[in-house]
């Protein structure tokens, strides 16, 4: 089909220029010796000046990791990872924990500028205290924790948030300033032995965000962390812990980019969320790691364990994700619905183009009565991409009156890609109701022609139709992200339709 050949050629021409975040930042870095061993674990812990209990915790995880076998999902193919052939600590050379933004290396801030972090954040990061607090267009400010390679570089609005009792800081800092909280909750949702990558992360994590929202407090602004992998041959192992105490509410945004490289880099993060009675945590991710070039070389391996525990009654955890980057995505943000009447939600758009592979989905564990879960997954496959939705809905014997609704839709662009759905539905409770639906469709020739006849270019037409397909998910994103996400969708699919 000539249309397909044209597509392939266009994609090849466009791909290199498409990923505009692919530049490197020239900055002084400090590295641990290459490789992974107990000594490296100690090195990391020492660099971060951690208390003994945390070092012990890491070492236990490392010992567990050494005994585990790397999982192999049949749907995702990648060459073996040599865990010894990477650096597990790479940090910009500056004082750990800048006291003010003036102390941040200006080169670093220029990086964030180039990354196109929303202008408001950029202005805030560039540094005047109070900048953005009363924004001209009266939108809420966003507090940002900027993480460059493994180290948190700056966190804005900390003081403002502290007035409400909200703790938002790098986890390396929380370990020192609020050790009792960290000790109580770290590893309580994702135990060290949970899986291979979680164990690895538990041993070598270097930083990430820590959030604690006190009872009854509604966090006044969105909290955001921006991850950037810059150094070569490093893995990124951030660890995030968010605790929402009874009656509290928080919305958290995670965004990520990385430079274009030939090699593959590993991103094995762990995110733990805990929601108490009547608390709500909304966790949104727009992920645009480098996906590899059009031939499938290079790109980030994104193997992430994300889990939320709805511990309290009537608690709610929502995961919303737009995944457009990374060579391989392997993540199943999950909810453990323990508290009665608790609610878990999962809204996802995952795109695979060129040679990307995604095996992603969610796991909803219904334990308490009248728990409810909603899963809306939109997968888009183009090029040679392989996109798999893998989900688990497990209703326990005591989850009387539980409800699940799942909708998985796949959109295929071209006939060289694949879209797969593997849902596991396990119901042990008679009074629970589970409903699952999956459909497959494509962008039809006549839909494209209709749009073009009305004056839209091919690209705009694809963007419009794809956004329409993903609409139910996109409307769950906080506004700031929604616009970015829509543009990202369009860019990720540039040239995919002939």
């Amino acid at each position, binding site marked *: 089909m000539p249309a397909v050949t044209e597509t392939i050629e266009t994609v090849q021409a466009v791909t290199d220029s498409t990923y505009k975040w692919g530049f490197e930042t020239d900055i002084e870095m400090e590295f641990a010796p290459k490789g992974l061993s107990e000594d490296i674990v100690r090195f990391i812990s020492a660099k971060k000046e951690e208390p003994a209990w945390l070092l012990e915790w890491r070492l236990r995880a490392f010992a567990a990791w050494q005994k585990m076998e790397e999982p192999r999902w*049949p749907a995702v193919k990648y060459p073996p990872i040599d865990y010894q052939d990477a650096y597990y600590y790479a940090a910009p050379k500056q004082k750990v924990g800048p006291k003010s933004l003036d102390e941040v290396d200006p080169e670093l801030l220029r990086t964030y500028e180039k990354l196109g972090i929303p202008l408001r954040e950029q202005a805030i990061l560039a540094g005047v205290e109070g900048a953005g607090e009363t924004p001209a267009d009266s939108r809420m400010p966003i507090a940002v924790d900027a993480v460059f390679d493994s180290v948190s570089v700056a966190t804005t609005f900390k003081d403002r948030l502290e007035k409400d009792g909200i703790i938002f800081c790098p986890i390396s800092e929380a370990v020192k300033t609020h050790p009792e909280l960290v000790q109580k909750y770290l590893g309580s949702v994702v135990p060290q032995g949970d899986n291979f990558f979680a164990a690895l992360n538990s041993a070598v994590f270097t930083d990430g965000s820590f959030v604690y929202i006190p009872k009854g407090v509604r966090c006044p602004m969105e909290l955001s962390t921006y991850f950037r992998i810059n150094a070569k041959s490093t893995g990124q192992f951030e660890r995030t812990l968010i605790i929402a105490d009874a009656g509290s509410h928080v919305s958290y945004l995670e965004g990520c980019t990385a430079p274009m490289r030939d090699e593959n880099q590993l991103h094995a993060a762990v995110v733990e969320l805990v929601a108490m009675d009547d608390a709500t945590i909304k966790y949104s991710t727009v992920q645009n790691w480098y996906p590899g070039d059009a031939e499938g070389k290079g790109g980030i391996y994104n193997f992430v364990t994300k889990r939320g525990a709805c511990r309290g009654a009537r608690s709610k955890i929502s995961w919303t994700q737009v995944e457009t980057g990374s060579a391989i995505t392997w993540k199943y943000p999950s909810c453990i619905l323990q508290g009665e009447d608790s609610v878990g939600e999962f809204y996802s758009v995952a795109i695979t183009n060129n040679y990307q592979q995604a095996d992603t989905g969610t796991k909803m564990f219904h334990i308490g009565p009248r728990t409810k879960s909603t899963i809306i997954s939109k997968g888009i496959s183009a090029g040679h991409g392989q996109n798999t939705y893998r989900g688990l809905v497990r209703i326990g*014997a005591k989850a009387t009156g539980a409800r699940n609704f799942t909708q998985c839709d*796949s959109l*295929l*662009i*071209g*006939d*060289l*890609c*694949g*879209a*797969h*759905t*593997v*849902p*596991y*539905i*396990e*119901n*042990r*409770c*008679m*009074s*629970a*109701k*589970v*409903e*699952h*639906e*999956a*459909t*497959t*469709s*494509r962008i039809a020739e006549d839909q494209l022609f209709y749009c073009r006849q009305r004056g839209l270019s091919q690209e705009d037409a694809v963007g419009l139709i794809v956004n329409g397909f993903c609409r139910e998910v996109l409307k769950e994103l906080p506004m700031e992200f929604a616009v970015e996400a829509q543009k990202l969708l369009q860019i990720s699919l540039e040239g995919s339709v002939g």
Partner: protein
Amino acid sequence: MTAAPQPGAAGFLARYQGLKDHLPGARLPWLAALRDDAAAHVAARGFPTRRVEAWKYTDLSPVAQAGFAEPLTAVAGVLTLPKPRCAARAVFVDGRFRADLSALDGLAYRAASVAQHLNALEGVLGALVPLAEHPMTALNTLMFEDGLFLDVPAGVDAGHLELLSIAVDPGRPFAFHPRHVIRLGAGAKLTLLETAIGGSAQYLHNPAFEIDLAEGAVLTHGRAQQEGEGAFHLSMIHARIAAEARYDTMAVSAGARLTRMEIHAALTGPKASCHMNSAQLAAGRAVVDTTTALDHAAPDCASRQTCKTVLAGQARGVFQGKILVRREAQKTDGYQMNQALLLSEEAEMDSKPQLEIYADDVKCSHGATIGALDADSLFYLRSRGVPADQARSMLVQAFLHEAFEGLEDDVLREALTAAVDGWWVRHGTAS
């Protein structure tokens, strides 16, 4: 022959070594080679455990541990058979063909014993089955003694045929593995009613079907599984459906202590189609499992599947349905629906509908629901004067009715409805 039976695959392999020279076709090199090959697979894989993805939800250890023997001598004499539903009937007792009990005269096609026609089956038997992927078929290949050989010539409308399998208790746990080979020539037609019944003994019935439909052929296959309550029924169908041919199967699983009805169907030419409907019913501690894989390997093919599961007591239901649409299978129209009704607190349903799609101009969807009888509907019926038990019965029947949609054949409909009714009478009021 007097040693105590050994459990698991090792037991079957040992029995095979002992029986090998007496099995049908022992002197046919091709069949001996096929069986030896199967033995290698059985030795390598054994009985699949729950760590094997395809057996994740169904535990075969009761089968592995049972220690079966083969029925060594055919059960002779007259048995009381259920009334025939079709004029033409092939009867198998403990997996062996019984000409005296069958009615196969004057047919326009061949319906005979596999064991007596092995020469005609060289290159046919075993052709459709990749043994490496199917452990129970490997076991069947190893141990089969007989089966139904059906060969309908091109253009022949063969009408109805009943295939009846009876298990007769020889006084100890026993196993039989009939191998059925069904071929329809271009444009041929056949309606087959397959019934499996047995006594209360513990037995393993492990039938394997190789079905080959040539262009334009139509096979309508009704299946009433009403094995004894201590039985294990593990059936496997491998079907190849050519261009414009059609394979419609409607199954009711209402007996046995553990059932797995597995179908692997490939649509190999344009406009081939396959409808797989089933109703699986389980109570007490029974396990029912419907596992299917539909391979769209050609363009313009259509597939439909509806599976209804009803579970009472502490029963367990499993549905695994995979639809594979290959890159060349553009304009595929595939639809799958799987619904389960839990009638008791301790029942459990596990469902895994799966789509693997490599073509873009396709219409493919699946749906799954699991739940209990709708309280509002129950109340509505009762408020109109219908007693609670009858109301439940009506709703369950209505639920199962959809699995029989499109079943126009009266013979099949009567047989399958009777199977469902029989189960409901025995188990419907318990919960």
